[in-house]
């Protein structure tokens, strides 16, 4: 068994254009996903919009540089995650494929020493 983080990546511009109907359906789909895969899910969370992000970089001299915004500028940003446990990558991918992500997709990464 291993742990995998399923990160949901969204194009926030598409969410901004939604009249609320996709959002409502999406909430329902997530509840259904959790119900169907509860045995494998260890943790989950939804992130606030990327405009709320603050990034911190070490400056190499023992100090920090704190800036407004996401760490890396990309069109699709991480909007939520599931931490799941699976026997192998195929099982993890089979679960991750069911994660609702109507405005983008998901990235699956194993945790080191996730056993």
């Amino acid at each position: 068994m291993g742990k995998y983080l399923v990160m949901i990546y969204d194009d926030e511009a598409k969410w901004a254009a939604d009249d609320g109907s996709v959002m409502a359906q999406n909430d329902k789909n997530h509840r259904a996903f959790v119900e169907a895969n509860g045995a494998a899910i260890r943790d989950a969370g939804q992130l606030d919009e990327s405009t709320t992000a603050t990034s911190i970089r070490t400056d190499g001299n023992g100090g920090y540089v704190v800036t407004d915004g996401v760490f890396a500028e990309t069109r699709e940003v991480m909007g939520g995650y599931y931490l799941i446990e699976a026997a192998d990558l195929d099982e993890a991918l089979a679960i991750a494929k069911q994660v609702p992500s109507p405005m983008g997709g998901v990235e699956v990464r194993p945790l080191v020493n996730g056993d």
Partner: protein
Amino acid sequence: MADLVAEAVAAAHVSEWAAVLAATARVAADLDLAEDCVQDAYAKALVHWREQGVPRRPGAWLTTVATRRALEHRRRADVARRKLPLLVPDEDPADQTFPDDRLRLVFTCCHPALSQEAQIALTLRLVCGLSSAEIAKAFLVKEATMQARITRAKHKISRTGIAYRIPHVPELPERIEAVLDVVHLVYTAGNQWGIDLARMVRLLLPASAEAAGLLGLLLLTEARQAARVDGAGQLVLMEDQDRRLWDRGLIAEGLELVPEAVREGGRFGLMAAIAAVHAEAGCWEATDWSEILGLYELLFARWPSPVVGLNRAVAVSYVEGPAAGLQQLPDDPALATYSYLYSTRAELLRRLGRTEEARAAYEEALAFTTDPVEVGFLQGRLTRDV
């Protein structure tokens, strides 16, 4: 005197490598360890077979030696609690449908979570037993680059937990497609291992029409190889090929696969059927172009890629004439640097007698190829034919 033992070991490398490694990987639960153990077993064979004679079943001998060594290693590693298994062990009883271990190895190497170039490199390394140097040479990259690519792919397999097993039934068609794509690419890269791999996959997946299709396609393509280039190293188009040079043995073997291959109307099955129509024509003029066009229509419906569209346009040109073919040439940015698009347009213009436009198209084709055989052909057209 020839060294019979060295020859026997070399022959066993070609015919048994995949099976020995596949069985050892199951025990070792680690691809690197399995590879080391198998290499070691081959080295031992050189010594032992010289003293004791070549065993009756070299593959079984090698597997025993390699797996025993893998077990010793694991026992020691377990004592040291050094690491957990790096390959997810196989615990799926459904696997019994496919008893040959080699299939596990092939599916692991061609897992869609790996990049296609990594899939190809791993397959050549682990399934065919080629060295990084040999693979690097075939794909025109530096050995260190290829070595790094293989190492990265192996890390991904162990760290992400890509299982060493046959995919579950719902994923099977998609996963088989990935395997067949890799084998096809190995062949089109000019590597003779493509045919051996296609034979192996056909053997391991007897129920797959597409596996039959791929093998048929490769055999029928390979059969024309001797006629493709003339004595001076010049490319010979199929219409000018000396069909006596076509390999009748390969054609017969390929044709036998076609009825089964087209059964499901899959991509490789249809491509094999097209190759079969060419193979069955006694001369260029006897080619059944309406049959070929029909097959291309089916292929394009199933696989609407611009390259298929381009080949379909060629078929159109032989059924309805070059003007119709010209009209059907795909106008796709994906082909903007594809020399075959321009050489095809040039051929159609030449057949229409539009010499000036044909010249320009041949020039364009030249700008997008560095293959010496193609360059020679295009220059020949420009100096002699238009």
